[in-house]
């Protein structure tokens, strides 16, 4: 299992903290009425974005979701321009024309957050197709949730990517809920990669999405495979959303409060990496 260096671990730690702080700040601003539209927070899921993007270069592509701030920051998006975009200002990435769900940054290969569930998946396949046709070593990563794996276009895209051996990594962030619907009620599948990857005859990996080291290792395998012309992988990261679907949803009408608290206590990806940094790497706790 590939392991990050100390510096890489510190980098990933920093990135996860940046995401957490950004999301908490955005949440507070939204709740005080200063941000318009919708806000879908990534709190609790930081390890997936960070562990995957640790293997990506500036010219690799990602497509993201409505819950996209974590992917954007992990890929190299600037927090000031992202926050300005949330405020709909001209200093934002999209000059205020896109908002939270449509932030894009061409310079860092961010093909955009996306307001339609599943719709970023074929875009990533297209970007991968472009790389393949141009003969580069670029990779495209598509982030999406368990809910998106029931969209027709998910199936169309995985099928095409497998047939055409596209340099794409499909990263499912299974946070166990499609908005307010538990996974067991929206699909019979439990382990998304174990079942849906073989359906398209593509490799599948499932990892604990809240353990950035495990995500890092799995993503290494998948990104390397894509980069070396070995085709796509479906990487399923089991994670959990600490807040509601969006601000305004407390997240407890369809989830047990105890379950949420338990997840926060036991599976916080930042606390877990902190543990590793202190115990195994020798950093001092503050």
């Amino acid at each position, binding site marked *: 299992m590939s392991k990050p260096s100390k510096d890489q671990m510190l980098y990933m730690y920093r990135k996860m903290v940046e995401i957490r702080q950004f999301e908490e700040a955005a949440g507070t601003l939204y709740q005080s009425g200063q941000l318009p539209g919708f806000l879908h927070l990534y709190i609790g899921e930081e390890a997936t974005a960070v562990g995957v993007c640790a293997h990506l270069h500036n010219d690799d592509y990602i497509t993201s979701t409505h819950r996209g701030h974590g992917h954007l920051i992990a890929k190299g998006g600037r927090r000031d321009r992202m926050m300005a975009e949330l405020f709909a200002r001209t200093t934002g*990435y999209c000059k205020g024309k*896109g908002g939270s769900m449509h932030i894009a940054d061409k310079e860092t290969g961010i093909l955009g957050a996306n307001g339609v569930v599943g*719709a970023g*998946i074929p*875009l990533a396949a*297209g970007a991968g*197709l472009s790389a393949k046709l141009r003969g580069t070593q670029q990779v495209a990563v598509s982030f999406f949730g368990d809910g998106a794996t029931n969209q027709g276009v998910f199936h169309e*895209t995985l099928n095409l990517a497998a047939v055409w051996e596209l340099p794409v990594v499909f990263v499912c962030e299974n946070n166990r809920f499609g908005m307010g619907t538990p996974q067991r009620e929206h699909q019979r599948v439990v382990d998304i990669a174990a079942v849906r990857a073989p359906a398209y005859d593509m490799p599948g990996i499932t990892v604990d999405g809240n353990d950035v080291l495990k995500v890092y290792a799995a993503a290494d395998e998948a990104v390397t495979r894509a980069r070396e012309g070995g085709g796509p992988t479906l990487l399923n990261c089991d994670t959990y959303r600490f807040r509601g679907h969006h601000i305004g949803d407390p997240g407890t009408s369809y989830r047990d409060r105890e379950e949420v608290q338990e997840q926060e206590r036991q599976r916080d990806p930042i606390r877990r990496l902190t543990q590793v940094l202190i115990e195994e790497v020798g950093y001092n706790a503050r």
Partner: protein
Amino acid sequence: MGEDIGAYGGAYAVTRGFLDEFGPERIMDTPISESVIVGAGVGSALAGLRPIVELMTINFSLVAIDQIVNHAAKLRYMSDGQFSVPLVIRTVTGGGGQLAATHSQSFENWYASVPGLKVAVPATPYDALGLFRAAMKDDNPILFAEHSLLYGMRGEVPDEWYEIPFGQADIKRKGNDVTIVAYSRMTHVALQAAAMLEEKGRQAEVIDLRTLRPWDKETVLESVRKTNRVVVVEETWKTGGFSGEIASTIQEEAFDDLDGPVARVGGLDVPAPYNGTLEAAAIPNSERIIKALSDNYGI
């Protein structure tokens, strides 16, 4: 990329020979998956290519409509121009071949409502070639709607290079007595009506819009100011048809030049029947154009 464009040569034989001439890296057969055909087209356009994708018919474009309307059309705007989507979506439109309701529709008018898209509806080989060249150069997503019954049409195209810009209608027949605005196959029905009107001593000016988004408002208005009588003809259902947009614009901007209300002839508001007689009754013909002019303008 598209379904059966390679070895099969295309469902309407449009891409016959392309695979041999351009090779499998440029002519790619896809699974039957319209959403990813368009979506991957969009994604590859975001990532530097200039793809041309085919949707076998516009009826099946509905499977991909999210990618067309929500993504192809909007990514340039939403990204503040960081990305453009230089994508041509070729598709086959129209009915009249007794293919029944799900295979006979014309949705160009729906797509023509969408900011961020361009829509071409050529009626002749000359126009199709000129517009297609312009489409390939355009950095915007374009729906290029080719009418299924016009593939057999022959026409002269010059050896020298030419292009036709979008938003430029073509006056296919000049006249002073009445304006007939049409597009796609209905252009030819309009010309038939013009021939019938000539026998009655009336000269019709037939305007072929050639593109619906953008559409050439000035040419239409100039003609109406001259003839004072206008009928708009299109194949899709009259309700919600693009003829409403055109008629509305004419009455807004040339109200005082009209001798009567703008006439509209469109497909009847029914699912396209399989039976040939029923189907023909549902599609505009020259008789209905003549009648509309008689009803509105007494000619």
